[in-house]
């Protein structure tokens, strides 16, 4: 079995990329494939707890985060330097990596897909 990393880097509200990346992660997990997630750039806004998008703005992907553990998706990585200092309204299920760990992380996977 191959280890797969899904790297989300797009805004959850400007295109379907984030949603379709998460869909792929969920399908991989459903087929019992080892899959982890990492978030960077505009995709980090998924982590904000105080969002309630209107229907025109797209699906509230934040709500999917709590369900990831039921799919055995337990590793969701972010870069600690990209974390906002105010973490009060940030989902707490991520693991923050320093720059070296972040760069090394990509070598731990046979497949990395970017969305």
């Amino acid at each position, binding site marked *: *079995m191959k280890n797969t990393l899904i790297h989300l880097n797009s805004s959850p509200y400007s295109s379907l990329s984030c949603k379709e990346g998460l869909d*792929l992660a969920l399908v*991989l997990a459903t087929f019992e494939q080892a899959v982890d997630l990492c978030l960077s750039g505009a995709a980090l806004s998924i982590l904000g707890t105080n969002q309630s998008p209107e229907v025109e703005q797209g699906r509230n992907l934040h709500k999917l985060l709590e369900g990831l553990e039921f799919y055995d998706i337990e590793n969701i990585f972010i870069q600690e330097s990209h974390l906002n200092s105010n973490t009060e309204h940030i989902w707490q299920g991520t693991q923050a990596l320093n720059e070296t760990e972040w760069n090394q992380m990509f070598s731990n996977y046979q497949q990395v*897909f970017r969305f």
Partner: protein
Amino acid sequence: MQYTLLITGSPYQSKACHTALRFMKAALKKYPDCIKGVFFYEDAVLIGNKLNQPPRDEMHLTKAWQNIAKKYDISLYLCIAAAVRRGIISEGESRRYELNQHSLAEQFQLEGLGTLVELMNTTNKIIQFR
């Protein structure tokens, strides 16, 4: 070594479908069995719309993919969820949604993401074009 190609870039907003086609032509020329399948996801599924009519002095990308798939007998899969939401509808899906039209081009087939997982596990490498 066998490859699977995963194409996610839109045929209109990126060169992903063009670059993947060039890669495939070069790879197949040298190793005719080296591509197991091609999976289109996200906006790349728009390549499978049979109603595409590019200007006559431009390349017909959908036809180019159909030709190479036919020549080398390579399966071209479109993610069914991504395709249906973008109006790429097979005859079967057209009946299911009680529509009068269908738009899926020949040589392309609608498949779930499970097919991509199977391709991942049966080929040496997946290459994403985005």
